[in-house]
């Protein structure tokens, strides 16, 4: 009897409702996108015809989960970026929408976009941001198939670490450093998209320590040495998240550099440090040709081993370890 009445339990009904709600939100977002296309014609044929909040839209830069980015010009001809939020995302993330505006209002750095305004009109809700020079590292790597040299990797690493030093000194965690969120024009690297940026917690608890419970162990490191390194975990409030994501970006760049990778055909010349260990499916620290200091630095950045207590320390160590890559 009890089983037959289990149909009436509400949590099962709420699953269906959640599914329906998701479908409803998807339909609402689709409708929003269609409406936006009608209100703001940014196709190539009608280029420059739309004006949003006094800014003339020139082209669509790209889109993501949050919405889309448009390139526009202000009346003085200065290029800006209009970041348009999907209505659904704004409603679903109502408690966290303001962080980007607040955090960008408090930052002033050439490698960080400046918040120039907020537009709330019929065609949508926008943040007006200054445009950073260059294109994303993702475009460099996967659209233009660029191979980064050691000097370029060093430059990008140092410049991004400088930005992180500034951000962390202002208690800001970017939280979303990736190939898509780093712009580079060949001289200057800059960081964009502060949608997931947050302030550091005041008193970090056990879940926001510099090294989380998912810390991996180094396979080639003896247990005693590993324990000694990870014995003291610095309590620095999530800066390790930015460090790890930055290291991830740098590893992508290193893999694009032919001199740093060990492909099967190239391992025969005998000049590689770890040539004998490189194999198919090997870990990055076995594949990349890095010195011991460089490997240690990258491992600490990415979280294998004792993380850096501060970004200043991480930047200094990176500079020292990769100094011979500097031209």
């Amino acid at each position: 009897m009890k089983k037959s009445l289990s149909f009436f339990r509400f949590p099962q009904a709420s699953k269906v409702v959640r599914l329906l709600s998701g479908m409803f939100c998807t339909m609402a977002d689709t409708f929003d996108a269609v409406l936006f296309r009608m209100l703001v014609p940014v196709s190539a044929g009608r280029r420059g015809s739309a004006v949003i909040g006094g800014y003339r839209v020139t082209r669509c830069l790209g889109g993501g989960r949050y919405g889309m980015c448009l390139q526009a010009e202000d009346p003085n001809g200065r290029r800006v970026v209009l970041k348009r939020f999907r209505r659904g995302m704004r409603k679903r993330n109502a408690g966290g929408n303001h962080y980007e505006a607040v955090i960008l209002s408090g930052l002033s750095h050439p490698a960080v976009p400046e918040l120039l305004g907020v537009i709330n009109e019929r065609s949508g809700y926008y943040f007006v941001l200054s445009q950073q020079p260059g294109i994303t590292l993702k475009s460099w790597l996967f659209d233009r198939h660029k191979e980064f040299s050691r000097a370029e990797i060093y430059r990008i690493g140092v410049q991004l670490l400088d930005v992180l030093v500034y951000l962390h000194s202002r208690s800001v965690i970017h939280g979303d450093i990736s190939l898509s969120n780093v712009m580079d024009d060949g001289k200057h690297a800059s960081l964009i998209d502060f949608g997931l940026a947050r302030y550091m917690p005041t008193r970090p608890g056990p879940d926001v320590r510099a090294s989380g419970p998912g810390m991996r162990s180094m396979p080639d490191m003896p247990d005693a040495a590993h324990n000694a390194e990870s014995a003291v975990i610095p309590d620095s409030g999530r800066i390790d998240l930015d460090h790890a994501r930055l290291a991830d970006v740098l590893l992508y760049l290193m893999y694009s550099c032919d001199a740093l990778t060990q492909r099967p055909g190239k391992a025969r010349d005998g000049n590689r440090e770890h040539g004998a260990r490189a194999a198919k499916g090997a870990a990055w620290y076995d594949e990349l040709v890095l010195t011991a200091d460089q490997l240690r630095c990258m491992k600490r950045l990415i979280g294998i081993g004792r993380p850096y207590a501060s970004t200043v320390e991480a930047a200094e160590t990176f500079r020292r370890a990769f100094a011979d890559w500097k031209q």
Partner: protein
Amino acid sequence: MSGFFGSSSRRRYPNRYQGRKYYRKKGLFGMFGSMSSSDAGYVTYPQQYPAQGYPQYPQGYQPYPQGQQPQYPVQGRSQQVPQVSQPSRQASLPAAGSGTGAGAGAVAGSAAGLTCSQCGTVVPAGSKFCLGCGAKMTANATFCGNCGKPLSPGAKFCMECGAPAQR
């Protein structure tokens, strides 16, 4: 049958502190609002920004018993808080200890930020622009020179690190 009609059902309310609101939020009519006449008093939550690291008291907490709140003398300049067109938006936010001269676009100070004079939206502390209408609110964008976190309007010290506010 027990567990369906009777009050002995243990799984009906997974969180005993939420009561029937648990299902009201997630249920079918939670999306569209209540259709029951007995639930006419149910209103949606006003939009409010979470405090950025400031200490939070649990709901219903009163630091002093009712009617025994101590009266402090007015320190500094007092300022009349004008009526705002959308009172529900700032009803749940704590009132400011001392309102300061806000600047263009700003009306009254609170722990969460200033209220926009054009649209009545409560702007979170630190934002240079009203997030509702986009009006410029430079007086709201004050940050701690030490730790970089936003200062609430009129604050003399940073609530995070204790450094004095530089104005």
